C-alpha cells in the first residue's frame, strides 16, 4: 500500500454548515465548491473555510473546476491566511449528490485522481441530500470523505477506485466570520449566474422583440425565485440566530451576576 498522503480530515462544524446549506439549495443540480485549510505534519487536514463555486456548466453531471475558479479560491485562501494568522490554502473540493447515493461516481473518482496529481493531499467530500424513505417519512443527509487510488499494477492503464478517508466534524465554539461570509455569498452567486445567462441573450442580434420580452420575464421570475427561496430564508435564519445569541447573552450575564454576588457573600 502506498504511504497514505492523508491520514484523516477534520472539518470544522461551521464549514459543514455552509457546505450543507449550499447542497440543500437545489435538488436539480450538483452544486460544488472548494475547501480551504491546512495539512499538519501528521498529514491531518484541517478544513476551516469554504469557497462556493458557480456552476460553469449547467449540465447536471459536469462537476469540473476551471482554472479561474482555482486561482480565485487561492486568492481567498491568502486573504484568510492574513485574517486568521494561519497559512490557509485550497486543500480539497466538495459537491452535492441530490437524490442519489453519497458514493462518488467513476467520473468523480477520476476527477479526484486528476486533482491528486497536482496535490497528493487533495481531499474529496460529497454530501448526499434530499434522500427520503417515502414510507417511514425519514429523511437523510450523508457526508463522505475520499481520495482516489490506482488499483491496477504499474504500467497498465490506471484503474481508479475510492479510498475512504476518516472524517471528523469538529465542534466549534462559534460560527466563524469567514463561514458566515460564504453563506451570504450564495444568493450573490446565484443572482450573478442568472444575470449572466440573461446578458448573454441580449447580445443575440437575431432575437425578435417577443423573444427579448420573454427573456426579461424569465429573468424576473428567476430572480424572484432566488430571493424568495434563498435570500429570504437566510435572512430569517440569521436574524433568529442573532436574537437567540442576544437572549443567551442576557441570561448568561444574569447568571454571572447571581454567581458573583453569591461568591462575594460567602
Amino acid at each position, binding site marked *: 500500500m502506498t504511504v497514505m498522503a492523508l491520514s484523516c480530515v477534520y472539518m470544522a462544524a461551521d464549514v459543514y454548515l455552509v457546505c450543507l446549506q449550499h447542497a*440543500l439549495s437545489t435538488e436539480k443540480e450538483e452544486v460544488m465548491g472548494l475547501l480551504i485549510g491546512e495539512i499538519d505534519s501528521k498529514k491531518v487536514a484541517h478544513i476551516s473555510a469554504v469557497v462556493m463555486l458557480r456552476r460553469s456548466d449547467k449540465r447536471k453531471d459536469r462537476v469540473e473546476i476551471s482554472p479561474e475558479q482555482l486561482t480565485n479560491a487561492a486568492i481567498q485562501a491568502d486573504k484568510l491566511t492574513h485574517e486568521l494568522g494561519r497559512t490557509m490554502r485550497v486543500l480539497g473540493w466538495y459537491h452535492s449528490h441530490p437524490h442519489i447515493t453519497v458514493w462518488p461516481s467513476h467520473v468523480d473518482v477520476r476527477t479526484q485522481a486528476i486533482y491528486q496529481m497536482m496535490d497528493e493531499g487533495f481531499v474529496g467530500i460529497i454530501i448526499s441530500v434530499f434522500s427520503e424513505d417515502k414510507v417511514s417519512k425519514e429523511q437523510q443527509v450523508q457526508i*463522505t470523505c475520499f481520495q482516489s487510488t490506482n488499483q491496477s499494477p504499474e504500467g497498465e492503464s490506471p484503474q481508479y477506485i475510492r479510498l*475512504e478517508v476518516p472524517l471528523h466534524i469538529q465542534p466549534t465554539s462559534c460560527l466563524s466570520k469567514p463561514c458566515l461570509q460564504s453563506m451570504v455569498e450564495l444568493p450573490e452567486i446565484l443572482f450573478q449566474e442568472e444575470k449572466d445567462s440573461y446578458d448573454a441573450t441580449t447580445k443575440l442580434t437575431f432575437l425578435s422583440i417577443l423573444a427579448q420580452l420573454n427573456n426579461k420575464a424569465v429573468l*424576473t421570475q428567476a*430572480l424572484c425565485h432566488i430571493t424568495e*427561496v434563498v435570500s429570504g*430564508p437566510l*435572512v430569517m435564519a440569521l436574524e433568529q440566530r442573532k436574537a437567540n445569541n442576544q437572549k443567551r447573552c442576557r441570561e448568561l450575564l444574569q*447568571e454571572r451576576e447571581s454567581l458573583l454576588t453569591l461568591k462575594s457573600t460567602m
Partner: protein
Amino acid sequence: MAAHICVTLSGPALSFLIYENVKCYCDQEGFLVGEIISHVTDTISDSQIRGEKTETIISVNSLMPIPSCLSFYNGVGKINEEKLKSFLKDKSKEVIGWYSFRRNSSLVPHLRDRLLHKELSAAVPHVSPEHFTMCLLNTSISNGGSTHVFNHKFLRYRHSKFEALPMQIHNLGETQPEYKIVPSTTSLSESFNNIIASLKVSHESGSDAALVCHIQRALQEHLRRLINDVAQSEIRVAELEKEVDMLRQQPGPMPNEVLLPQLLREDLN
C-alpha cells in the same frame, strides 16, 4: 373533506438545526420556530363531486436551541411552566414544535419524549395539538469513520398515537407552479418584507427585473450587516459561556436554583 398535512423547511433552517447537533458532542434539544399555514382549495374529483381540501403546512423557518445546562422539565418529562415561559419570553407565539437530537439512537420517540411532547403542546396553546410537531434527529458514523449519516423525522400526536409527517425542503429545484396561488410557506422576516415594500413604493418607472435587482442588492446589504452582528454575538456568547461555566465549577457553595436541573436530569433511557 380531505385534509393534507406536510412539514416544510427551508435549507438554512435544516442546516442550522443539524449544525446545532454537530456543534458539540452532547445530545441536544430545542424549539422549532415558524408558522402554521392552512389553505383550502376546491377539488373536482373525476366523479364530478365538488369537494374541499384543506392543506395544512407546518412551515419551520428557524430554531431556538435550549442550552444544555438549562432545563425546565424533570426526568419524567414534567415541565416547569414558569421556567419555560421565562425561557421563551415573547418568542412563545412563534413556537410550532420542538426537536430532540440523540447520537446513535433510533428515531422512535422515547417515553419521556411522548410525555414532554404533550406537556409542551399544552404550554403552547396557539398551536392546535394535532399541529404541534416533534422532530427527532440522530447521527451515526460508518465506513471506517469516512461517512457521517444524519437522519431526521417529523411526527405529530393525533388520535392518541404518534404519526410521521411528510417533509419538504424548499429549494430552487422544486417544480414551480406557473402562477403562485398559495400563501408562500417560505415565511419571510419582517425586516425582509419592509425592505421590499419600501423599494416597491419608491420604484415607479423601470422594469420589474430592475426592481428585483434593487431588492436583491438591498437584501445583500442587510445580510452583510446581519452577519457582522451575528459574528460578534457568536464570540460574545462563547466567551460568556466559558466564563460562567468556570464560575459554576469553582468550589464554594452552589445555590440550589442552579443545582436542581442537573439533579433532575438523570436520564431515564
